[in-house]
C-alpha cells in the first residue's frame, strides 16, 4: 500500500522531500509524495481539486523566516492579533481539507522562536513583539491539535531548542536558495516526520528492554555489592537516578519495561527490593530476565510473552558488544548507541525520540499504579497557602537509626562533602566510618528523609562518642537538601535516647566555625543547650517532657 503524502511549504523543500521518501522506505513504508507548489499552502488546502485534497497525510511546513516577513507587513496596531490571524488561516484551511476527507491527517509544523533582537527579553512583556506572537501562535496550534483528532504538530520549535539553531538552519542556503533546513538537519527532520506518519499507521515502539549494570545503575552489582552501586547520591548516581525517572515515566505512559541482564537473578533483583535510592521497582517491569545466556536468546524467549513484534522494541545497553549482538540478530530492534559518559545519556535519549506516541488515553496510565503520588507534587506546591501547610502536605517522614554497613559509603561521602551544616568539620575516611560499626564507645545516628514525592535518602549523621559521663557530639552533619524541615529536633530526640541508653548524664556539643558553616551556629542554643567554655552542654535531668525517652 502506497501512502499518499502532500508536502506544502513556503520554502524550498526538495531535499527534505527526498529525505522523507528515503527514510520512509528504510522503515518499510512506500510513500507517494507530492510537493505542492512553492508558497501555495492555502490554495492547496482550500481547493477541492488540489492534489493535497487526495492525500492521506498533509504536512504543512512554514518557516519562522517567512513568518517574520508576514509579521513585518502587519500594521503595528494589529500585531497583538497576528498569531490569532495566522493560526485561524491555517486552521480554517486544515479544517476545510478535513471536512472533505475525514480520514486525512494534517501535520502542521510549529515555528522556531527566533530570538527577537528588537525588544530583547522585554519582548515577553510586549504583546506586539514577534517573539510573543510566535509563542502565542505555537500555543494556538497546540490547542488546535489537542481538539482536532486528525490534527498533529511537528514540533519544529522543540527540534530547534534541542539541536540549536546553528545546526538546524544555514543562513547561506536560506539566502541563496530558500532552504530553511540545513543539509545536516534534513535527515533529522525527515526522521521525525516519518515517525509521526508511521505512528499513525500503527507502527510505534512499545517496549524498552534495559540492561542493569552500568545502565540502570553505576557499577556491577555482582562485584561492587548492593551498598556500592552508584545510584541516588552516591558518586555519579544522579545520572542513573535521572535515567530511572525517565524510564519510569515511559512505563507510566504505557511503554512495557523489560530487564535483560547478565547476572545472577537474585543479585540483580536485590537493588530493586532493597536499595532505598532505586526509583524503579520490580513491579514496574513486565518481564525480568537475569541469567548468563546471550541476550538475543533471552529476547527471543521474552517476545512471545509480551506479544509484540521485534520491530516495536528498543534495547538499551551500555556495552557496545551487547548492542552489536542484538543488532545483528534483530535488525528491526532499535538499539541506540548510548554515549559512554552516563551523564550524556538522558539528553541523548530525549533528543533521539524513540517513543513517538500515536495516541494517549487515560487508560494508558491507569495500568500504572504509581502514577498518582508524583503527579500531584506540583499541585501541592502551588495550592499550599503557607510554608507550614506545605510541609504538612508533604507528609514528611524522618527516620533516625543506627549506622549499618549498607550506609557506610553514603555516610562517608556526606562527611566528605558537607560544608555548611558541619559543626566540627571532622572528615572521616571510609575505613574510619566502617570501624565505627563495631566500636562500642561510639554511636552513629543516621537520618533518612522522605516526603510523599521523593526519597532523599541519608541526609543527616551525628557521630557520638562516649566520654566518661557525657555523650560528646564529635560531629554532626546535614545535607543542605534537608534544611528547614525540622530535622534537628528529630535528631536531638535520637541523641537523647542514645545518651539514656549509655546512661550518660549530659550531651556535650561543640561548634567550630569555618568560612562556610554559619548555618549550624545556633543549632545547640535553639535545642536548649547551655553555653559553657566554648562548649554546649545539655543536662539530661533537664529533658523536657516532649523529648523524654519513652
Amino acid at each position, binding site marked *: 500500500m502506497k501512502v499518499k503524502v502532500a508536502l506544502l511549504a513556503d520554502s524550498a523543500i526538495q*531535499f527534505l522531500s527526498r529525505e522523507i521518501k528515503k527514510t520512509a522506505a528504510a522503515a518499510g513504508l512506500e510513500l507517494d509524495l507530492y510537493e505542492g507548489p512553492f508558497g501555495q499552502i492555502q490554495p492547496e488546502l482550500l481547493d477541492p481539486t488540489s492534489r493535497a485534497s487526495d492525500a492521506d497525510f498533509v504536512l504543512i511546513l512554514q518557516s519562522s523566516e517567512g513568518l517574520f516577513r508576514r509579521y513585518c507587513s502587519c500594521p503595528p496596531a494589529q500585531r497583538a492579533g497576528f498569531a490569532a490571524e495566522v493560526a485561524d488561516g491555517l486552521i480554517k484551511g486544515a479544517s476545510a481539507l478535513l471536512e472533505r476527507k475525514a480520514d486525512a491527517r494534517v501535520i502542521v509544523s510549529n515555528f522556531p522562536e527566533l530570538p527577537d533582537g528588537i525588544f530583547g527579553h522585554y519582548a515577553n512583556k510586549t504583546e506586539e513583539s514577534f517573539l510573543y506572537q510566535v509563542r502565542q501562535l505555537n500555543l494556538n496550534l497546540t490547542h488546535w491539535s489537542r481538539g482536532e483528532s486528525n490534527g498533529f504538530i511537528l514540533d519544529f520549535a522543540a527540534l530547534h531548542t534541542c539541536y540549536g539553531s546553528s545546526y538546524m538552519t544555514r*543562513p*547561506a*542556503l536560506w*539566502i*541563496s*536558495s530558500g*532552504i530553511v533546513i540545513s*543539509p545536516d538537519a534534513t535527515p533529522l527532520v525527515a526522521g521525525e516526520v516519518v515517525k509521526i506518519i508511521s505512528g499513525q499507521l500503527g507502527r510505534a515502539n512499545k517496549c524498552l528492554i534495559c540492561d542493569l549494570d552500568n545502565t540502570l545503575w553505576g557499577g556491577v552489582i555482582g562485584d561492587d555489592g548492593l551498598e556500592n552501586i552508584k545510584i541516588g547520591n552516591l558518586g555519579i548516581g544522579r545520572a542513573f537516578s535521572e535515567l530511572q525517572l525517565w524510564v519510569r515515566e515511559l512505563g507510566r505512559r504505557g511503554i512495557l519495561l523489560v530487564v535483560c541482564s547478565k547476572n545472577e537473578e537474585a543479585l540483580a533483583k536485590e537493588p530493586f527490593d532493597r536499595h532505598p535510592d532505586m526509583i524503579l521497582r520490580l513491579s514496574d517491569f513486565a518481564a525480568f530476565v537475569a541469567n548468563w545466556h546471550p541476550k538475543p536468546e533471552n529476547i527471543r524467549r521474552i517476545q512471545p510473552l509480551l506479544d509484540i513484534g521485534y520491530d516495536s522494541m528498543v534495547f538499551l545497553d551500555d556495552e557496545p558488544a551487547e548492542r552489536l549482538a542484538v543488532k545483528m540478530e534483530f535488525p528491526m530492534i532499535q538499539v541506540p548507541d548510548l554515549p559512554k559518559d552516563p551523564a550524556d545519556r538522558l539528553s541523548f535519549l530525549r533528543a533521539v525520540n524513540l517513543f513517538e506516541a500515536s495516541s494517549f488515553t487515560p487508560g494508558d496510565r491507569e495500568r500504572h499504579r504509581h502514577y498518582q503520588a508524583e503527579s500531584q507534587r506540583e499541585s501541592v506546591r502551588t495550592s499550599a497557602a503557607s510554608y507550614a501547610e506545605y510541609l504538612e502536605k508533604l507528609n514528611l517522614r524522618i527516620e533516625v537509626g543506627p549506622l549499618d554497613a549498607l550506609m557506610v559509603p553514603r555516610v562517608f561521602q556526606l562527611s566528605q562533602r558537607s560544608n555548611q551544616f558541619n559543626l566540627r568539620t571532622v572528615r572521616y575516611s571510609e575505613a574510619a566510618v566502617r570501624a565505627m560499626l563495631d566500636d562500642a564507645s561510639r554511636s552513629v545516628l543516621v537520618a533518612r528523609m522522605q516526603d510523599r514525592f521523593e526519597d532523599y535518602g541519608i541526609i543527616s549523621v551525628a557521630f557520638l562518642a562516649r566520654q566518661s559521663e557525657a555523650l560528646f557530639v564529635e560531629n554532626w552533619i546535614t545535607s543542605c537538601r534537608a534544611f528547614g524541615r525540622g530535622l534537628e529536633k528529630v535528631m536531638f530526640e535520637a541523641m537523647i535516647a542514645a545518651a539514656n541508653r549509655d546512661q550518660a548524664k549530659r550531651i556535650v556539643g561543640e561548634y567550630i566555625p569555618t568560612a562556610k558553616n554559619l548555618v549550624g551556629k545556633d543549632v545547640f542554643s535553639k535545642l536548649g543547650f547551655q553555653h559553657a567554655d566554648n562548649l554546649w552542654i545539655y543536662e539530661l535531668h533537664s529533658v523536657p517532657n516532649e523529648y523524654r525517652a519513652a
Partner: protein
Amino acid sequence: MLTTSGYMNSIPSQMSTVQREETLAALSAVFSNVLGHPMVLKDDSNAASVKGWDSLSHIELLVAAEKRFGVAFTSEEIHGFVNAGEIAKAIESKLRE
C-alpha cells in the same frame, strides 16, 4: 638561497596550474559521487556540459565539496558559481586563508 616565498613568486603560474589540476581532480571525484557517473571536470565545466548538474543538485554538489575540503561557501558564492573553475578557485583561496 631563495626563500620559500621567493621561490613561490618565481613560478606563480606553474604552481597554480598544478594546484588547480589537483583541486579539479578532487572536485571531479566529489561530483562523480553525488551525480552517480564518472567525469573529469575542467575549469569551464558547467551545468550545461555536466549531466545532472541542475539548480537542485548544485546545492548538493557544493555541500559535498564543503565537506570534502573542509571549507564553507558564502551565500554569494553558492548563488553565483557558474562553472567548476570558479568553485575550485574559491576552494583554493579558502584553503590558503
